[in-house]
């Protein structure tokens, strides 16, 4: 492995391990999505009987992709929050004073986000399985769903990191938290796109998460009619590449104007 690769790995390892030592980051990323899943799975299961609702064996398995993508959103956001904290409390200066490529500092943070999202998705899949969800897509479908969520987390993490690098403000990042739910509920996270309210249905095609959550659903249910994996992959990769580039530019701008 190259020297920069080891730097990325070290920074990713640090980002991930610190995540598990900070309750205020761990609770929203692992517990909150499961709480919402429990509410939706138990409180809205009657939706399964609506005309136009896809024929699925398990309602829990149908809504689980929404939880997985919520986890990815929160993983990305907490990554930005942690970066803003590093900037505000001076730890980022320690990294900047080291002889490493500036882009490695962004990619290292993203590596931690990737790891966190994969652990989250695996955890959500296991918990839902324990409560009766089944995945006809098998292990391959699950792995692909986990990978898709991880790429999405990188996309959101890139955006949050760009904001952190641009502003250096921890409180601003924390105030963005409610927007996670706007993004989530303007995508067919828990209901089929056709059954969304007309206004949401009109917005959904412009939300990249729509394609990702539908793709995860299609992969887990082994039903391309529920979501096209390639469309989901394209949306997630485009989001990740664009926002990581944005974060890198934000870092360059930050260093230029120091």
């Amino acid at each position, binding site marked *: 492995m190259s020297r920069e690769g080891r730097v990325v790995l070290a920074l990713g390892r640090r980002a991930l391990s610190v995540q598990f*030592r900070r309750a205020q980051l761990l609770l929203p990323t692992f517990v909150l999505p499961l709480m919402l899943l429990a509410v939706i799975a138990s409180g809205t299961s009657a939706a399964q009987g609506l005309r136009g609702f896809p024929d699925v064996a398990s309602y829990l398995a149908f809504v689980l992709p929404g939880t997985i993508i919520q986890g990815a959103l929160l993983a990305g956001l907490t990554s930005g929050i942690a970066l803003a904290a590093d900037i505000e409390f001076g730890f980022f*200066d320690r990294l900047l*004073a080291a002889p490493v490529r500036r882009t490695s500092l962004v990619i290292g943070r993203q590596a931690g986000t990737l790891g966190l999202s994969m652990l989250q998705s695996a955890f959500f899949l296991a918990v839902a399985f324990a409560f009766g969800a089944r995945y006809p897509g098998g292990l391959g479908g699950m792995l692909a769903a986990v990978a898709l969520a991880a790429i999405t987390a990188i996309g959101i993490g890139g955006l949050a990191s760009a904001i952190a690098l641009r502003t250096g403000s921890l409180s601003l990042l924390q105030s963005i938290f409610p927007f996670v739910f706007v993004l989530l509920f303007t995508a067919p996270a828990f209901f089929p796109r056709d059954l969304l309210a007309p206004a949401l249905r009109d917005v959904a095609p412009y939300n990249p998460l729509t394609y990702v959550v539908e793709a995860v659903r299609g992969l887990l249910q082994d039903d391309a009619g529920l979501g096209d994996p390639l469309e989901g992959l394209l949306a997630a990769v485009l989001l990740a590449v664009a926002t990581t580039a944005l974060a890198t530019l934000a870092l360059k701008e930050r260093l230029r104007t120091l």
Partner: protein
Amino acid sequence: MSDSSSPAVEVRGLVREFKGGIRAVDGLDLELEPGEIYGFLGPNGAGKTTSVRILTTLLRPTAGVARVAGHDVVAEADAVRRSIGVALQEAAIDPLMTGRELLRMQGALHGLRGAPARQRAAELLARVGLTQAGDRRVGGYSGGMRRRLDLALALVHRPQVLFLDEPTTGLDPTSRGALWREVRSLNDDGTTVFLTTQYMEEAEQLADRVGIIAAGTLVAEGTPAALKARVGEPTLHVELADPGSAERARVALAGLGSLQPPDSAAPCKVELRSAAGHGAIAPVIRALDEHNVVVESVEVESPTLDDVFAAVTGSHLEGAGAAA
């Protein structure tokens, strides 16, 4: 390329202007020889930290040139980063990580891996007396322990030049003493140390040379002794047992220095200025004894770097006396 004959730090006409036209550093010139401890002394807001941030590549200069270990801080920033160790003000250490984890991570940032990285972390923990605490989270460390860890982190890659920005601010005297010993020991190993401080005692104790900065400009520079000599010689305050012996005392001491005019409010006191300072105590007592003058006490008051600061700027250092 750096070589052993080039200055460890060379600064010419350095300027840093912030928004609103505020000049934190205003035409700074400095030169540090390899292997010296340079104390950068000044009050809060004098431009010490801004200068260090420029020299450690964390801030770009508005004008001027700065070279560290022979490398330009703007054009060869990466080479500078490989040559320096930095412990910034208010040790920025992730409280959720352990000391050993931080040292391992710092090692990875400097290209160390595997067994050598583990060994270096253990070595440095031992060096700064944190072996027992190495696997505890830094959040539970005391201020002194954090500073020592910060110093260890700056040493992971054996830097040529070590920048310490107010390393003992807020520390108790024991922790301060421990850190001073470590800095001296590092310097004995050949590391050039650039130390900023607002404590004159720290500068006097540690630095081979001291630069005094005020309003972003270097206002005085030299060895602590030379700087103090600029503002005057040490004064010996002699307290006599009998006020009636004052005249005899003045006759006895006439050849040993410059006698200060008598103070009618303190008839038992005689003041003598002598460049010999503490070295003049024995001759003074002998001379007084020969003239049958009984002495209660002799005290030597030397000029301080605060006196130097006051002489060149007209104001006093905020930390004057705080480190005592």
